[in-house]
């Protein structure tokens, strides 16, 4: 049942991406092709000229076993405790005949900061060609729905891990996908007699008939901090908070960490017993109209009087963003 579903999946994927298996240029002449050659000779004996043919020489194209695994998502940003995080790979049959491949994932690797925890199941086919893990994707079961790929065909594979809760910002965790030809692997040139397409020999190609690629998870935390300060200017030239005095607020917003804060919105209620001074809202010294319009911010009188500024994506490299506005004490 599983394997039937997979065949449908592979077919759909190939169609969706406009790729067929008949473009065998990269892999060479298709395995099983018989190449014939017959020579001819013209001659004369006495005054009579004639021709005759040689025997026909047949060379059958053997099957090359080759596979390449390529990473489609170089770095996946995650947070501590995230579950079902996928790294996307492509497994391509770079041989010249149809071949079935076995898939293995490994997240216990050296050179990184933490070991991602393999989800169960941990390998899926991107059945719906969405590029990410979704309900329509089929789980891979070794030996049951091993991908059968024609020459030059590929399948998109998702490796799924959970992220431990103990990781900290900028930690890296590696996860590897390996694919190997079911007919066999080995040093290039290793021959499996009679096991190739159409009963021809299968010969291990330059890839050793196996391939792997390693992706990584990067814990990319980001913290957005806002520091608010105020300056009071009274109508008597002093700095006392008396009715009629003006308070100039300044809020400095900054992001710290390795991640990206997606379009954070700064919102600040107008303090009780004060009134917003129209036209005083500014972002990085540039004026923002009070109306709700195309610019980055506005003043809202209801339900609670407040100012609001949309900051756009912020990273540590964005630097600090300064928002200012003023109120008067009632």
């Amino acid at each position: 049942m599983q394997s039937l579903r997979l065949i449908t999946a592979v077919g759909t994927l190939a169609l969706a991406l406009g790729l067929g298996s008949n473009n065998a240029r990269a892999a060479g002449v298709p395995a099983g092709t018989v190449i014939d050659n017959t020579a001819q000779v013209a001659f004369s004996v006495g005054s009579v000229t004639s021709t005759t043919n040689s025997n026909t020489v047949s060379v059958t194209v053997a099957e090359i076993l080759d596979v390449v695994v390529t990473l489609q998502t170089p770095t996946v940003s995650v947070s501590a405790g995230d579950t079902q995080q996928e790294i996307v790979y492509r497994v391509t049959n770079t041989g010249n005949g149809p071949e079935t491949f076995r898939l293995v994932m490994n997240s216990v690797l050296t050179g990184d900061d933490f070991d991602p925890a393999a989800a169960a199941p941990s390998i899926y086919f991107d059945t719906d060609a969405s590029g990410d893990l979704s309900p329509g994707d089929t789980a891979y079961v070794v030996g049951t729905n091993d991908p059968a790929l024609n020459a030059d065909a590929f399948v998109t594979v998702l490796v799924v891990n959970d992220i431990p809760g103990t990781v900290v910002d900028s930690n890296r965790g590696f996860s590897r996908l390996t694919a190997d030809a079911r007919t066999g692997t080995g040093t290039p040139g290793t021959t499996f007699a009679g096991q190739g397409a159409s009963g021809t020999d299968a010969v291990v190609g330059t890839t050793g008939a196996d391939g792997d690629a390693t992706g990584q998870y990067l814990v990319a935390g980001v913290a957005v901090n806002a520091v608010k300060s105020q300056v009071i200017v009274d109508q008597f030239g002093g700095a006392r908070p008396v009715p009629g005095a003006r308070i100039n607020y300044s809020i400095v917003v900054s992001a710290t960490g390795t991640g990206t804060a997606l379009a954070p919105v700064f919102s600040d209620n107008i303090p009780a017993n004060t009134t917003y001074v129209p036209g005083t809202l500014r972002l990085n010294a540039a004026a923002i109209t009070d109306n709700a319009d195309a610019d980055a911010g506005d003043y809202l009188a209801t339900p609670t009087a407040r100012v609001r500024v949309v900051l756009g994506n912020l990273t540590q490299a964005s630097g600090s963003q300064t928002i200012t506005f003023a109120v008067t004490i009632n």
Partner: protein
Amino acid sequence: MLKGIQKFAGVAAVLACGLSSQAFAQTQTCVPVLKSVAEVEKEVVDAKGVKSTKLMPLATATPGTLVIYTTTASNGCKQPIDNIEISNFVPEHMTYVASSAMATGAEVTYSLDGKTFGTADQLTVLENGVSRKARADEYKFFRWAFKGSLAPGAQAAASFRAVLN
């Protein structure tokens, strides 16, 4: 050698003129045996550890393999055979290796279409309205025209090399 050819040709002419029925019978039976083989070069090491290259018969090949096609014409008759011309072609899915078409005692001509034959300098290709010299990888057909005649018991061989695409 040239003298020999003329002499044999002369004898044949006499036979043809004087004994036409016999001459006909002879041409019926006197046909060179033409044998083709596909081989690959393999490095072998003998008992003394000396390496040498041997030609081994080839039945299956992987893309990229260099295949050597050799055609041998053998004269099993009691009379010489004249005007030997062996023809062969680069099989489908294969690419000719430059300068590899050879035969001892023969002049080789090439063709792209199997109709017009010429030496390497004579073959041209029309590309975007401009004529250029044909590249060796575009050669598809060969003719080896042997000089002189093939004596009884003698052999004439012609070969070329091609790479499986």
